[in-house]
């Protein structure tokens, strides 16, 4: 039997990588467009690599799974955001 204390501790799951496709978002320069998409309202389920900008309601996308503590930029409204965990959900907060 293996001592449970000797088992490797389950760390955070490795980050997945995502291939970002064009979303039709056209409000930033071309090379940045795939990093954003329009929000479809409260029923819009965000992916593990996505966060909603609280300032301008655009969905921010990353090539990697997002986690609490990550910093991302919302280019359409020029905000710098940090992801925090609130009630088990990831929420983007503006950092001034």
């Amino acid at each position, binding site marked *: 039997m293996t001592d449970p204390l000797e088992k490797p501790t389950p760390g955070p799951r490795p980050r997945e990588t995502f291939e970002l496709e064009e979303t039709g978002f056209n*409000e930033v320069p*071309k090379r940045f467009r795939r990093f954003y998409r329009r929000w479809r309202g409260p029923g819009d389920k965000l992916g593990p690599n996505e966060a909603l900008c609280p300032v301008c309601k655009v969905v921010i996308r990353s090539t990697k799974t997002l986690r609490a503590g990550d*910093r991302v930029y919302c280019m359409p409204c020029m905000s710098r955001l940090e992801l925090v965990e609130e009630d088990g959900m990831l929420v983007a907060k503006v950092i001034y």
Partner: protein
Amino acid sequence: MTGPDSPHDLGETEFRDTVRSFEFWFEAVEGYLHGRPYGVTPGLKEAELSERQRDGLITTLCNYCVGETAALDASSGMIGFAPDRGAKVFLATQVVDEGRHLEVLLHRLGQLGVTDPDAEIEQRANRSLLKFKERLLEFVDARDWEASVFAQNVILECLEFTVFRHHAGTADPITAEMLRGIVSDERRHMGFGENDLGRRLLIAPHTHDRLYRIKRELDSLVLDTFAETLGELGIEREERPDLAGDYMAAVARLGFRS
């Protein structure tokens, strides 16, 4: 523009310099304005409007013109006392955005049969909005950066962002497309204001009380304007969008209690 492909890999200064530049504006607006004269795809069919709907839309667009003229006069005036070069260049892009909004709104009024827009605007303008405009331009004349950014880029832009977004969802196709283009611009203006002011409040917390007094003074003007505009659009009270939600959330992020 050169630099990393992912915007999230930019350094903070690099990010701020990028988004406030003419180059950024230039490549961003190309995405949603190219091939859309006066903000609308050529050939888009005019919907049939009843006389009451047409009249309500004219009043609403006249009031949008008041708001956009206020924003044009204010943003241009603010360049003279903006604190740094990046803010000046950003405001220059905002000036042309506001001028464009005014132009497309006037063009739409013309399509709706308005022949003397100045007279119509004077006749239909909402008193609270005119009062708001007057106060905003007083802040600009006094070269008061914090009060001007707060009144214009946080309060006025937030009001417009919420109203235009909602209106675009219910309007005829031509008005809706024109409004969606305006909303795309408003994101930049609103974000600039909130971020600039947020940074300022962190380093000069004493500014907070002064801005809070301004907020209290302007709140009723903003909410009256909002209620009246939605009334003109014939939107029932229970179906109205949550301006209080958007506006209050923005000011709450800046640390103001409602």
